[in-house]
């Protein structure tokens, strides 16, 4: 994450909080092998405004978005393991040959 990434993420989190919206924050906490994004990459899933940032796109990200909606609904954090190793010769953009461990947590608009 660059300083600019940190900044846009902060703005998105604060905007959601000020608007009183519940959203989810996904963070790549560990990777194995070759993955499109590295540890620290983040994405906010905000049901009202969409996505900010990326955890790599493709099928893997779709899995994370699905998990994020569940996390927003239940208010309970979840770990998502995205496996990109299945088919190395398919040349699909989502196939990088690695595994990503992603922490998806609810972000409540309440001020603590």
């Amino acid at each position, binding site marked *: 994450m660059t300083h600019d990434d*940190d900044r846009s993420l902060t703005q998105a989190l604060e905007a959601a909080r000020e608007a009183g919206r519940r959203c989810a924050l996904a963070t790549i906490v560990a990777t194995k092998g070759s993955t499109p994004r590295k540890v620290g990459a983040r994405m906010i899933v905000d049901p009202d405004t969409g996505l900010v940032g990326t955890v790599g796109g493709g099928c893997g990200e779709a899995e994370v978005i699905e998990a994020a909606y569940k996390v927003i609904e239940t208010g309970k954090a979840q770990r998502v393991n995205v496996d990109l190793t299945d088919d190395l010769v398919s040349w699909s953009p989502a196939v990088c040959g690695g595994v990503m461990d992603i922490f998806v947590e609810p972000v409540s608009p309440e001020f*603590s």
Partner: protein
Amino acid sequence: MTSLHPAEAARLLVEIPERGGSVIVATVVGDNQFTGNRIALIVIEKEEPELRGSLSLKSGTGSVIQLMKNILEDPRASDGLHELTIADHLSEVYIEIRRPVQELVVVGAGHIAQPLAHLGALLGFQVIVIDDRPEFATRERFPSAEKVIRADFSDPFRETPLHTRSHVLLVTRGHKYDYACLIRALRMDPPPAYIGMIGSRRRVRATYVQLLEEGITHALLDRIHAPVGLDVGAETPEEIAVAVAAELIMVRRGGTGAPLKGVERIVERFFKEDK
């Protein structure tokens, strides 16, 4: 105190490094009752270290704080997972660390400075542009710069003192201006992290002759990156800016500047033709 809100933690990760400090955020991500709890440790030079948030538990916070302190002392530490016993349970803690923001001081606001300022900002530098010509030192010409300053080259760093996080790039329109700024940068104690100067071999040599006459030592001359940039055959201002940016990355990450193809030699090592 309760757990630090993700938005507050995110703000600390942005603001503390801009103030020249370091910050570590620890988030419990293991599958237990503390999952999602966050705590931050802020360390700013000459100030008392400060904790923000709590892990909402009576015991075990100490082990997390100790972990954060250890990581802070490791210059190569980066974001990642750590296993840790918290309140008798083995937990996983995700650590984020941000060091003080590095500064790129571009002296001279001409045609190379423009792409350089953009690239510097992209690479995470706080960019400061300095020129003595008011029509060049404008915000419009440098939208991604943090500050654009009009200052005489006789005393260019008066408003923005250099420090150990400063990367100075001299790209003024004439060698006498480069020289005036260079001698000031070289006499800084402690010295800036990086000094680069653009110029042909002739121009660099002429500058060095003058510096030696002024009593600057050979050791100090050797600190200057000049001519600045990696050899990629750059010709246009944009290409030159990329070559200079590549050198800044090399200095930051400790790379060699050599093409990876030649470093890895994959064909030679793994796909040798049978003779």
